[in-house]
């Protein structure tokens, strides 16, 4: 039925979509009101984990994804190999 698609070049809408997703993920962090929340969470999580384990300042990664039904908060804490003051 869709004979057209045979001859079609690569479509541009998926490119637009991908560019926007990458750009906005970045801009929301820099410009959005939400950046404050992520920054605050990051500091507090860092403080709590540090009470028990020695971790680097950069050892905590926080990602927030907005969804229509549900948003997710992804927290990744990097714990350096042995020798750290474990609890």
């Amino acid at each position, binding site marked *: 039925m869709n004979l057209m698609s045979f001859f079609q070049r690569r479509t541009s809408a998926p490119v637009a979509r991908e560019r926007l997703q990458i750009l906005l993920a970045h*801009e*929301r962090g820099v*410009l*959005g*009101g939400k950046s404050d929340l992520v920054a605050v969470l990051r500091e507090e999580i860092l403080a709590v984990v540090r009470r028990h384990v020695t971790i680097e300042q950069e050892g905590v990664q926080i990602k927030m994804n907005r969804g229509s039904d549900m948003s997710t908060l992804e927290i990744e804490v990097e714990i350096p190999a042995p020798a750290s003051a474990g609890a």
Partner: protein
Amino acid sequence: MAKVLVVTSGKGGVGKTTSTAALGAALAHGGEKVVVIDFDVGLRNLDLVMGAERRVVFDLINVVQGDAKLNQALIRDKRMENLSLLPASQTRDKDALTEEGVARVLNELREKFDWIVCDSPAGIERGATLAMRHADVAVVVTNPEVSSVRDSDRIIGLLDSKTEKAEKGERVEKHLLLTRYDPIRAERGEMLKVDDVLEILSIPLIGIIPESEEVLRASNVGSPVTLNSPTSAPSKAYFDAVRRLKGETVEMSVPTDKKSLFGKLFGRRAA
């Protein structure tokens, strides 16, 4: 209880004023008392789209500054008696709008109307932030196009942080109105699809307005499209959007102006 609705977008030229007029008239069609306000100080156009450009005597800034009474500035629509317009000033600069002044005018309007529809200027400066400042509901007008989607994302961020509701820890109810949509091009992969935009912006959809000649035809003659051609595809979409705004559940569709071959050949109307 009156509702303050802001029609906003960030980017210019996506259809804020057209949509303000169309939604305002569609709301009024249901019998409720509606006022549409132009916040675009210096570049007013809602008066022109509503066909009231020759009836403007006083404007929003005159009322804010106490130079005119609200009733002197309100222009009642000639076609619908329950639809009014509060025009923007063409000469003053936008700093003449103060937050307290706008709040006072909106409070006065809340006593007289059921819906107060604020047409925001483009951008994220004073006029735009004041238009959204006191909103209960926001309609974010977006074209399926990268710069419009990006700017809408910024505006959504502002609605969540810089409005009175946000500062009180409440939420402004946000809705996406996708305008100038062409389902055929979207299907061919030449235009962002509804789902793409929804996934990126993550706010609920209030309507999809198809690209249509009727929109220009209506603004040419100074009439909201929902009044000028109420059965056309864009009008159907605006009327459905209004029903959703009022809380009804209406199945989402992209209305089209179906034309028969005969219509295509002979159906050209002059406007």
